[in-house]
């Protein structure tokens, strides 16, 4: 299974060609207390692009990530696929600075365009469902931005399958821009997207873009049963976050990790590589994210053809 960055795939029902791994930028910038310094982020970006990578993923809610990405992308903007997201809170206390509404959409996109230093976005996701905005307002707003040339393609993440299904149907019936990609957490420890979201994406022409392909680092195999006891929440480490806040280090998940380690040993690769390979073997998956490992974790994966695993490092949603 080749996941060379220059082995491009179509993004859902669009004609856009993207690398089979998207570079996540949520850890660009240090405001969260655990991201990458600018020089590290630049090196990661350069390494990704030099290998043919063209699919950059950011969001208006990722702190300084958009500004850093815009700076890195400046001299090769047209050859990159810049994806960003809107709908997370931009100004505490301002109810119109969050959610899917037309007002927030336009203001958020203008902010992203300014930070990225570009006059168009290749892909815009609705980041998180708000249980509030009428779907027609969202779809018409997205389509207006496409008609204005500010956005080329539209997409969605973190939304119930039934909402996405009816949105796509409405978009098709009205001739509005269809949703061409879906982001969700999908990995060996989180497969519930197989119930409805992934079959829906296949049927309706949305590319599946899994975030957290290594389940926040658990699938690197860095935690064992010996770690289960004695970790406090809020100790400021990724380990504390996984154990206590997310509750993902469970017996069941460690069973999965055990098999993953066995398979990786048989292949002579890392558990991270084997976990990514499992995802990429799924014909419904277009391009998992990958991201730099956090400096306080075990570091990069030796021999990984793409330089390292994804590592979720900020708080959800991604």
């Amino acid at each position: 299974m080749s996941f060379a960055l220059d082995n491009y795939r179509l993004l859902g029902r669009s004609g856009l060609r993207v690398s089979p791994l998207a570079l996540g930028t949520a850890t660009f910038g240090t405001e969260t207390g655990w991201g990458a310094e600018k020089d590290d982020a630049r090196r990661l970006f350069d390494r990704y692009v030099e290998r043919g990578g063209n699919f950059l993923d950011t969001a208006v809610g990722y702190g300084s990530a958009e500004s850093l990405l815009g700076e890195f992308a400046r001299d090769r903007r047209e050859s990159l696929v810049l994806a960003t997201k809107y709908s997370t809170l931009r100004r505490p206390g301002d109810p119109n600075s969050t959610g899917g509404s037309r007002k927030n959409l336009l203001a958020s996109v203008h902010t992203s365009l300014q930070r990225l230093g570009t006059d168009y976005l290749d892909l815009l996701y609705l980041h998180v469902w708000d249980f509030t905005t009428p779907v027609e307002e969202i779809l018409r707003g997205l389509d207006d931005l496409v008609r204005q040339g500010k956005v080329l393609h539209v997409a969605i993440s973190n939304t119930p399958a039934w909402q996405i299904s009816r949105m796509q149907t409405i978009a098709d019936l009205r001739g509005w821009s269809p949703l061409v990609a879906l982001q969700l957490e999908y990995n060996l420890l989180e497969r519930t997207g197989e119930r409805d979201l992934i079959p829906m994406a296949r049927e309706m022409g949305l590319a599946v873009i899994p975030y957290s392909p290594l389940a926040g680092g658990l699938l690197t195999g860095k935690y064992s049963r010996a770690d289960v006891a004695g970790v406090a929440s809020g100790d400021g480490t990724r380990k504390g976050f996984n154990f206590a806040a997310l509750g993902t280090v469970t017996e069941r998940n460690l069973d999965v990790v055990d098999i993953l380690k066995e398979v990786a040993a048989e292949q002579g690769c890392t558990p991270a590589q084997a976990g990514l390979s499992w995802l990429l073997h799924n014909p419904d998956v277009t391009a998992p994210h990958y991201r730099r490992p956090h400096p306080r974790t075990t570091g990069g994966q030796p021999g990984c053809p793409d330089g390292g695993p994804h590592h979720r490092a900020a708080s959800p949603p991604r």
Partner: protein
Amino acid sequence: MDLTTAQLARLDEVSAIDPGQPHALLVGDHIGNVMRGGMKIQASR
């Protein structure tokens, strides 16, 4: 590096989820009998 079919099957098995409603019902023997009565009919994808 490429995972073998057997390795993929082991990973699929250990990480399998309960499909929940209505998916578990729809692939069960009872519904198979009610809907197809033993005939073989190819599903779309």
